[in-house]
């Protein structure tokens, strides 16, 4: 038991074990997140060295540097971080709940529902001159509503004396392909200009994030991630299968509903501000599992940070590598994440 350290508080009323390796990995991940955060703030059209960036954070720097860092780059980077965290946590919840390594936000149709809502929004609220008749600010709300409606729809369709994971996921696949088909159909029937705008949204981009977005997204992500973390014990039980979970006293259906709603809210808010960024929700939890094992107490924070790092890096690459061309972050999440994941798979091949 040298790998663990026990804690007892209040005469043993609260006790828990801490996995030393997980703490070590978590600390490293926090350092990497901070490093990417600062580096990403410094890089771009105007280069600012990391020390100056830190200086600006604490109120120093020239006016120009302050402007670039606080008005242009920070909101965007904070949104990337929050979106990555949301998607990764949601993916980890779904994989634990459904007990399938292929479960991801896209597979339940939640992202697809948001995409249909956005494409529909662009189609219905445009006039003949291809100009939107309502403010673009409503788009995140539309996406969120689309995601929520589809999540509830999938859950309701899967209900038959309770929801089993396999039925949930199969119906989710059906609905998500249907949503993709509807999106394609609307894009083909609509004007080409709207199609390309919708396409960028579907690929996923954090371009044009503002402080207003940050003030909505960050508290939401923090609250939801905290709820998810508080439910980590219950997810550990869910992963053992319905019979065992019921046997050890878990209210399986109620927990499943709560978990699904938490992950839907996480996905919905991420999708609302950054579109359909793929890969993170599917792969970040697997990377974390290869690093710290599959206990959710350690898995959730580590996969959250990996998700944040992935989206921040993808956005950094997208806006610097092909500058002045801006490439949506969604294009690069897999390009950066997959090689690392394959390396991890190779490294842990015998465990």
């Amino acid at each position, binding site marked *: 038991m040298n790998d663990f350290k026990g804690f007892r508080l209040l005469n043993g009323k609260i006790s828990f074990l801490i996995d030393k390796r997980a703490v070590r990995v978590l600390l490293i991940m926090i350092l990497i997140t901070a490093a990417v955060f600062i580096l990403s703030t410094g890089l771009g059209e105007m280069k600012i060295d990391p020390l100056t960036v830190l200086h600006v954070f604490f109120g120093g720097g020239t006016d120009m540097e302050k402007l670039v860092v606080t008005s242009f780059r920070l909101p965007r980077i904070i949104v990337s971080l929050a979106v990555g965290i949301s998607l990764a946590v949601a993916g980890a919840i779904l994989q634990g709940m459904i007990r*399938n*390594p*292929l*479960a991801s936000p896209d*597979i339940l149709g939640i992202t697809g529902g948001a995409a249909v809502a956005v494409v529909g929004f662009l189609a219905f609220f445009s006039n003949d001159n291809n100009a939107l008749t309502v403010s673009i600010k409503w788009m995140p709300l539309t996406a969120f509503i689309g995601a929520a409606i589809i999540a509830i729809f999938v859950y309701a*369709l*899967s209900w*038959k004396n309770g929801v089993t994971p*396999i*039925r949930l*996921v*199969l*119906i989710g*696949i*059906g*609905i998500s*392909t*249907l949503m*993709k*088909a*509807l999106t*394609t*159909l609307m894009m*083909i*029937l609509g004007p080409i200009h709207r199609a390309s705008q919708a396409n960028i949204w579907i*690929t996923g981009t954090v371009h044009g994030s503002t402080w207003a977005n940050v003030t909505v997204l960050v508290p939401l992500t923090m609250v939801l991630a905290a709820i998810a973390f508080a439910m980590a014990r219950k997810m550990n039980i869910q992963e053992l299968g319905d019979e065992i979970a019921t046997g050890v006293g878990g209210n399986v259906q109620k927990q499943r509903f709560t978990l699904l709603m938490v992950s839907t809210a996480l996905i919905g808010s991420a999708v609302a501000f950054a579109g359909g960024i*793929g*890969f993170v929700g*599917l*792969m970040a939890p*697997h990377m974390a599992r290869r690093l710290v094992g599959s206990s959710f107490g350690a898995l959730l924070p580590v996969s959250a940070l990996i998700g944040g790092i992935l989206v921040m890096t993808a956005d950094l690459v997208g806006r610097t590598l*092909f500058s002045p*061309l801006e*490439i*949506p972050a969604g*294009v*690069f*999440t*897999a*390009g950066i*994440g*997959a*090689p690392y*994941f*394959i390396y991890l*798979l*190779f490294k842990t*091949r*015998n465990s």
Partner: protein
Amino acid sequence: MLLKNNGQKVLGLIIAIILLLLFICASIIYGYTDTTWKMALNAFQHNNGSNEHLVITTVRLPRALIAAAVGCSLAIAGVLMQTLTKNPLASPDIFGVNAGAGFAVVIAVTLFSIGDLQAIAWIAFAGAAAAAIGVYIIGSVGREGLTPIKLTLAGAAMAAMFASFTQGFLVIDEAALEQVLFWLAGSVQGRKLEILLSVLPYLIAGWGIAFLISSKMNVLSMGDDVAKGLGLNTVMLKIGAGIVIILLSGGAVAIAGPIGFIGIVIPHVARAIVGIDHRWVIPISGLLGGILLLLADILARYVIMPQEVPVGVMTAIIGTPFFIYIARRGFNAK
């Protein structure tokens, strides 16, 4: 399952074959150019070179046969993939075939400006095979050899990576997007019969081997340990199944581009109809896959005539309600 004894299953198989043939005929006859059964018969017996006869022999016939062959191949590849990975969510694309083929085609079109469909078909085939072999090798590293979880994860990661590279290329080179979009959308339209004929031997080999190993797949589906205990050479069988999946899904993507949904959904529908015995699931899946793709392709011509809806869109619209009904009914319900 819907059909309980062998007599009913044979009947089901015959009905499926008849339906497939009917839909092939329907696919030849219905469409933008008005044709009748009589015209179709005449076109094959004494072709007079009229517009209708030309449409039937050079456009509709290849299209119908391609839809049948591609649908059939994707469905069978899907069955094998789901058994091999022991995952009901697996589809041939978990091997990275679509993503690999897409990447190869985009590279060929953008860097080497290849435009000939026949050449593209071979490039797609090569890309699909390369990606699948790569996934297979990564999934097999380590002491335990090929395990479902490693294969699934390696495949999902590789597929995502290739898709990301493809997308990156297309964002940088927008002109290329228009050139390859027709291929990336996935369609059975506008392909010549020669493309099908050149790939057909591989497809037939795939169908044949799939049928031959079907009883062994039953044993494998009980788990590796049980299968080994019963004297099955699991390594050889897995390699065999892998080759069949590469032949079938690689061939399908070479002819028609990436077409989703069939590979993942049809196996479930087939299992709901005939149970879990692969000797029945494989042929029934093949027939159902062909039927669904033909039906989707026929309807795709009518929705926004004279334009056409991508066939992948139609398969999802037709297939999803039925699939949800089956999923709700329960796969194991007697």
